[in-house]
């Protein structure tokens, strides 16, 4: 293990934890934090954004399951 590898993995782990914490916090009563549903809802508010988000999802599957 190298320092840079450990550091990069630590950042990814921190990001995953941040997503979990933020997602949970956004569902508490009275909060004004945007939830993941709000984020994707905003991105998908117009047809262009909705199609772009869907292409992003498609690319994700293609990247991990095909290439």
């Amino acid at each position: 293990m190298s320092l840079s590898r450990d550091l990069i993995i630590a950042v990814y782990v921190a990001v995953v934890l941040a997503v979990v914490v933020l997602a949970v916090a956004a569902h508490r009563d009275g909060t004004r934090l945007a939830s993941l549903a709000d984020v994707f809802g905003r991105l998908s508010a117009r047809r262009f954004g909705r199609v772009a988000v869907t292409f992003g999802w498609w690319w994700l599957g293609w990247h991990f399951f095909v290439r």
Partner: protein
Amino acid sequence: MAPVVARARSRPGATALVLVLVLAYSWVAGHFSTFTRPAEVATFIPGAIGVAVAIRARRPSTVRPDRSRSGWLAWWLIVVAVTVVEVLALVLGANHDHPTISDLVNPWLDPTPARALWFALWLGFGYWLSRR
């Protein structure tokens, strides 16, 4: 896809049937290795259906209007952090010392059951996105 699921939501039996079909499809797709034609077809079909649904959908946005600016900023910071580290790893060679997300995730996709599970989660995520 949406009308089928919408009908399924009103009938538990139909919901179970859709779920079984999705899991069966994922199980089959999980057996296909990367860089093969079957994997391409198995991934292409739901993607094409998803894009067709996205183009035709007339669903209003589900965004709640009272979100704070900092509430949005937190998500953008996460996106920026991931992008910076990912680009950095790519620029530095995307090797063992500088792994990208793909380098770290790919070993988890190797066994067939795990691959099928991730495929099912990917399909579920796509369905969730289609409801936003």
